[in-house]
C-alpha cells in the first residue's frame, strides 16, 4: 500500500518535504516510523527519547487526525493515507 509522508520544520530538514512509501502487509504508524528511524537515524534522535518513547508534544497526523486521538503508535494505516509529521509550534 502506498502512504505519503509529509514532514515539516525540523523533520523536513532530515527526510525532505514529502515522500511516498510502498509498504507491504498491514502496518501501523509505529511500524512506518520505525522504518523511517532505521533509514534516518537523526530522525530517531529528534522524535524519540533515549528510552525509545515518542517525545511529548510531537504532532503526528494521519489524514488530518492527530494519532493521539486514534490509537497512538498502534494507529493502523490504509492505502493512500497521508501522514504528516510536525514539531510543536507554541509561541506567539
Amino acid at each position, binding site marked *: 500500500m502506498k502512504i505519503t509522508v*509529509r514532514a*515539516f*520544520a525540523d523533520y*523536513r*530538514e532530515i527526510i525532505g*518535504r514529502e515522500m511516498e512509501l510502498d509498504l507491504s502487509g498491514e502496518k501501523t504508524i509505529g511500524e512506518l516510523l520505525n522504518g523511517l528511524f532505521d533509514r534516518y537515524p537523526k530522525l530517531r534522535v529528534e522524535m524519540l527519547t533515549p528510552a525509545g518513547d515518542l517525545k*511529548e*508534544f510531537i*504532532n503526528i*497526523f494521519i*489524514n*488530518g*487526525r*492527530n494519532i*493521539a*486521538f486514534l490509537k497512538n503508535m498502534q494507529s493502523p494505516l490504509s492505502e493512500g493515507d*497521508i501522514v*504528516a509529521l*510536525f*514539531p*510543536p*509550534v*507554541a*509561541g*506567539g
Partner: protein
Amino acid sequence: MSEYDIERYRRQIPLLGDEGQERMRRAGVLIAGAGGLGTVVAAHLAAAGAGFLRLADNDKVELSNLNRQLLYTPADIGREKAAVATGKLGDFNSSIRVEGVHITIDDGTVNELIKDIDIIVDALDNFTTRFILNKAAFGCCIPLIHGAVRGFFGQVATLIPGKTGCLQCLFAQSPTAETFPILGTTCGVIGSIQATEAIKVISGRGETLANRLFFWDGLAGDATVIETKRNPDCTVCGKG
C-alpha cells in the same frame, strides 16, 4: 459609511464590498496576547477598520521584545503592553475603539473578555491558555483564529464552532512553555495570515482556513496546508 471611511478604505472596499466594510466596522475582535503575533494582528485589523479591538495581555514591554513586537519602542520598556498598544492603535485609527486589558487569561477571566466579541484571535504564547480560550470560544460559538510561531516556523488554523473541530481536536497536549528563538518576520507572516482570516470571517469573503492547518516554513521558503478533521470524541466540541 462616512466620507472619511469611504476615502480611508478606498483601496480595500472593492475587495470587501460596502457591506463587508460595514461588517468590519461593526465587528468586535478579541486579540488574546499583545506580543509578536498580537501586535501584527492588531495593527492590521486597526488599519483595516475593525470597529472594536480588545487586547488582552499580562506582560510588560522588555528590550528583547523589540526584534518582533513592532508596536513598541525602547521608550515603552517597563510599561504594560496592553496600554502601550492601545495608545499606538488609537494613533493608527482614531475612528475605531480599542480597549487594552492588562490581565492573565484564565478560567476566571476568559468569559468576561469574550463578552461582546464576534471573533477571537489566538496570539498567545502557550497552549495551556490557548485551551482555556478554545473552550470558551466554542462554548459561546465564537470563531477562533489560531496562530503559533517558533523560529522560522508558524501555523494558522481557523476554528469555527459547528463547522470545524476545535483546537483540542488538533493538539493533544500543552507543550511546555519555553523561551524559544523567534524571528520577527515569522510573526509578521503568521500574524498577517491570522488578520486576513479574521477579515474574511468578518466580511464573509473568500475561503477560510476552516478544517485546514496552514504551516509556514520560512527556512525552506515554503507553505503547506493540510486538511484536518474534527475529533468526534473531543471533550470540548465533540461527544467526548
